[in-house]
């Protein structure tokens, strides 16, 4: 009898495990050093170019239908002349206990073996549940079929799907680059080296605020940064277990440069 209970208990424990995996192959993560972010939005532009993100124009932005997979949130504190601006880049946090994944009735969003939260465009029926459940508001919906003007359609990235009307999309950590690096590593029968993969945002960041890597590898750059005392994650109390780790900004009083 007790073995039946144990089996049920194990089964339930399996459901609590991210993506039902016993172990991930890799555990991709991004470390964002907010101290280094100067809000230049190069990452946003790079993301648009890499992932064939539609540009919606002024009206689309006014309607809050902007497609930025990564956004720089600006928080302004104080009155002139004592003004401080804080920047925080927010992209999909690739949560290990993702609220969006339980919402989708058709498995259009699921957890893959690399610890990523993947969106399958072709499977999506557009119930909006994932976007509603997402605490980070990073999911973007194709309200219309957006077609780039000629000749801009020539510059679309051939490695990335162009999405049609009615499907949800979000940051993928540039999964096409991850796949490419993993394939190359597999051909040479080795694991992906640290720093081999750079998503578009990481690649374009002029101050080096973003670092991408494998959290499973204890010696990787992200693992080293993630052990920092400045480490925190956004809305940790919601228990979504995000894979994006932030390093706190250390602010002085503005009178002298902080040391």
């Amino acid at each position, binding site marked *: 009898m007790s073995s039946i209970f144990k089996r049920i208990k194990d089964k339930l424990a399996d459901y609590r495990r991210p993506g039902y995996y016993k172990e991930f192959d890799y555990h991709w993560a991004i470390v964002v050093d907010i101290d280094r972010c100067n809000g230049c939005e190069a990452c946003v532009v790079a993301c648009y170019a890499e992932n064939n993100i539609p540009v919606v124009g002024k009206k689309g932005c006014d309607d809050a239908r902007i497609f930025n997979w990564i956004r720089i949130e600006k928080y302004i504190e104080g009155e002139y002349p004592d003004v401080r601006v804080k920047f925080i880049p927010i992209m999909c946090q690739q949560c290990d206990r993702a609220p969006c994944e339980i919402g989708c*009735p*058709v*498995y259009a969003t699921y957890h893959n073996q690399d610890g990523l939260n993947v969106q399958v465009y072709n499977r999506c*029926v557009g*119930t909006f549940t994932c976007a*509603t459940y997402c605490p980070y508001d990073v999911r973007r919906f194709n*309200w*219309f079929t957006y077609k780039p003007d000629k000749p801009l359609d020539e510059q679309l990235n051939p490695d990335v799907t162009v999405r049609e*009307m009615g499907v949800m999309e979000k940051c993928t950590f540039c999964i096409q680059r991850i796949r490419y690096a993993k394939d190359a590593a597999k051909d040479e029968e080795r694991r992906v080296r640290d720093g081999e993969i750079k998503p578009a945002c990481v690649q374009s960041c002029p101050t080096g605020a973003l670092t991408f890597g494998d959290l499973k590898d204890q010696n990787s750059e992200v693992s080293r940064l993630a052990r920092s005392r400045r480490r925190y994650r956004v809305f940790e109390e919601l228990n979504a277990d995000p894979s994006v780790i932030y390093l706190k900004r250390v602010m002085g009083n503005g009178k002298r440069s902080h040391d």
Partner: protein
Amino acid sequence: MGSDRTIEQIPYEDVNADVVRTMTETGRLYYIFLFLSMAGVVVLWGLPWAYQIYTGQGVTGLQTPAFWGIYLANFIFWIGISHSGTLLSAILFITQTPWRRSIYRSAEAMTFFSVMTASIFVFVHMGRPWNFYWTVPYPNQRGLWLNFMSPLMFDVFAISTYATSSMIFLYFGSIPDLAAVRDRVKGWRKEVYTILSLGWRGTDAEWHWLTKAYPFFAVFIIPLAVSVHSIVSWDFALSKVPGLSKTIFAPYFVVGAIYSGSAGIVTLMIFLRRGLKIEKYITKTHFDKLGMLLVVMSLIWSYINVVEVFTGWYADTSFETESLRYRMFTPPFSYMYWLMIFTNTVMPLFLIFRKVRRSMAPALIISLGINVGMWIERYLIIATSLPRKFHPYMWNDYIPSLVEVSITLGSFCFFTMMFLMFVKLWPSVSIYEVKEDIGIPFRRKKGHH
């Protein structure tokens, strides 16, 4: 029977004749209303929806934090209305309440039609409605299966089960009446009702099995009704969003559903008895009892509402406080909120007076008020929670677009159309149970109607 009778003594012959009359004799006003509601379905619902499917969900007022809007509010509202039939029919049946008998048939029809209206809203709100069958579990060539952890998946099962069961319940209880109609009509009607009545002859054995099986259906459908609205509430309560993620939502939604459903019944019965001239069968006693029910439901609903606000305020987390502040004290939502409190908590208190319960005009105003209030409640839950999620940077106000408003109005036209067709094609007052209410002792021994 005797003392708890709600209907005056009417000869059996007249009952049959009256019910068949409601189906065969049709005034001009009926055709005008039927035409108007059909036109409404096409113009207000069909065309905007076609436009939306063709162009994309962008024609709605939905935007990035507020992905759910008026469509889902309508969905919950109509599911809520559908609880009337179950309550009045099944619960009042097993508690052997006599005043149920002349109104339960139309209440059950109301259940079925409002579930239909609600389930259409599921498709209206989808981004790619042409792929709706992907949410149905069957072995398929796509090699895909469904996510049974999703609250929306629960919804698919709960609503389809409920719709099927309520349809069977409605049909099953109508068989003797369909046979009675069959025996009294001519022409095409004769053929239709011959098929529909499934060869009912009114033998002792048939009555025996009917009375055996009917309580089974009644008992079966009550937990189903409770589960349906609990599951609908879990679409919201199983998220992490402040304002939606509340443990009290399941009972709150069930109570709200019964409340709005009962109010819907009162509204509908007032029109039905006037329209079909069946004041003899749906009497003021019925409204008296329904009024009492409304007072009780109003008090329970108000209590849960107070608990919801109080616990949210007491918890004093910044997310929860903001969502309450946005809902209760920020125009235009504050106007809607306090209007809802007025129509759903204050106005029904007048039903405490016997005189108010027994007069039609106040009953109509109060029941319509409750339905407006319940619609507002569902709207506020969605329209004030999602625009105030966790990131203040992403906050945005949701304003429904013309397409959304038009489809909302169209759903009322659709419901009206279905109900108008129902009263002419189906005996909307139960002939055999009304006769039970009139009560002739020897009927039970002889065993025919």
